[in-house]
């Protein structure tokens, strides 16, 4: 199939960017979106031009490295699918495809379609961990976890941190990412000791980089792991409790 790409090109973080048009001829409809970009880049390289920079790693939808705004939809808009798992058969022959990077103040563009998502790392550093004893690995079934709880925690843990939620949000809020990361630890018994310190620290860090949630629901629709905004309600509930409980802990110290 033959396509026309309108791609955002930007030489560096503080450089001006603009759209460039590229023809992508004879693309296999079995190619993934990233493989299509590989073909385009191959040809650009042979022509002696700068290839399009984009982030990618596992290409099987589990690492969260890829992520592009395709025709105004994060990851191309196919439900529960990351850019690497989106196939060209979803497009029509002769289509014009607009390709943009995630746009958010918390995700500055590094080059072309690649953005700096280390703000997510700052959020994880603030509390996305549990305390465990050192030594040999503990017996896995020592702490019983109810089935429903483990399922729910697993749904939250499915987050791959791609940033589509931030990119999709009209407010550029990172609520869905933070809610998923908080919930997958806060729901489990192993996460209880740091539960309220965690939610407070992670939310406060999140708000240094991102906007606030106004419950549009765009993040849930964009999420390649279909993580529910129900986790955001859980985050809000724990945060309000944390403000009260953490204060009580301080007063006892």
């Amino acid at each position, binding site marked *: 199939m033959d396509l026309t790409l*309108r791609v*955002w090109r930007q030489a560096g973080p503080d450089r001006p960017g603009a*759209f460039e048009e590229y023809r992508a001829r004879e693309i296999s409809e079995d190619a993934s979106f990233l493989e299509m970009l590989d073909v385009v880049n191959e040809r650009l390289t042979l022509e002696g031009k700068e290839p399009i920079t984009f982030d990618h790693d596992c290409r099987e939808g589990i690492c969260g490295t890829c992520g592009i*705004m395709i*025709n*105004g*939809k994060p990851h191309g*808009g196919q439900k529960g699918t990351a850019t690497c798992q989106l196939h060209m058969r979803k497009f029509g022959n002769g289509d014009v495809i*607009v390709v*943009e990077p995630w*746009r*958010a*103040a*918390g*995700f*500055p563009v590094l080059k072309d379609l690649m953005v700096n998502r280390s703000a997510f790392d700052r959020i994880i550093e603030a509390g996305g961990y549990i305390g465990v004893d050192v030594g040999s690995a503990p017996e896995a079934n020592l702490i019983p976890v109810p089935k429903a709880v483990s399922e729910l925690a697993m749904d939250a843990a499915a987050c791959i941190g791609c940033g589509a939620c931030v990119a*999709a949000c*009209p*407010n*550029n*809020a990172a609520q869905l990412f933070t809610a998923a990361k908080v919930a997958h630890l806060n729901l489990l018994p192993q996460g209880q000791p740091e539960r309220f310190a965690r939610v407070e620290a992670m*939310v*406060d860090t999140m*708000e240094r*980089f*991102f*906007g*606030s*949630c*106004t*419950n*549009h*629901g*765009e993040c*849930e*629709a*964009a999420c390649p792991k279909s993580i529910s*905004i*129900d986790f*955001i*309600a*859980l*985050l*809000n*509930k*724990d*945060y*309000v409790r944390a*403000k*009260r409980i953490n*204060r009580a802990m301080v007063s006892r110290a």
Partner: protein
Amino acid sequence: MTTTQAPARRQYPWPIEFYRSAVGKKWVMGVTGIVLIGYLIFHTIGNLKIYLGAEEIDSYGEALRDLGGHLVPRTSLLWLMRGGLLVCAVLHIHSAATLTATNWKARSGRYHVRDYAVASYASRSMRATGVIVVFFLLFHLADLTWGVTPAASDVYARGAIYANMIASFERIPVAILYVIANLSLAPHLYHGTWSLFQSLGWNHPRFNQWRRYAAWAVTGFVVIGNLSVPIAVQLGYFD
């Protein structure tokens, strides 16, 4: 000795610390929203008393002023409620304004192409509909509470609720204004009612779908109830 550590930010009392966070502000918006929605429902019930006749609605107004009877000074409880509503409205608007500023700062340029999947007209127009409602509120107070012309009709008389409402709504531009204002209120009320459950963290698989139904019910009752009055006046129902 030099230090690389940033100076510690001054810690405020915890309600202020809570309100400084965006999640806290959304919580405040939710709680004040409940108060304002509750007020709207009672206000609509009051408005509908116009269909029971002049004596019914005029004595309803008198009952509000006389709330508490001989136990408290006249109109004191009414002013207490008005004060509470004003505090809620101010907090609601202040948190909305500051959150909007935060959100605009969090953006970096718009997408060249953006195709929303689920964000509704209601959720995306909250700021616009909120501003319309505030301006309408000022007009509405001038019209039927303060009796300031030209917002109020020439025959405005304090306490004559039935006559004031009909005289006001008989003016076609005013009737249109009330219809537009209520139609702007509808999406604000719908998204606000649904959304406050999320902001306050009230989420359970058992009742999640009822949050949407509740939002439709509240919006339908308030908006249809309020719209019916200027339309009925224009259609000559009270002649």
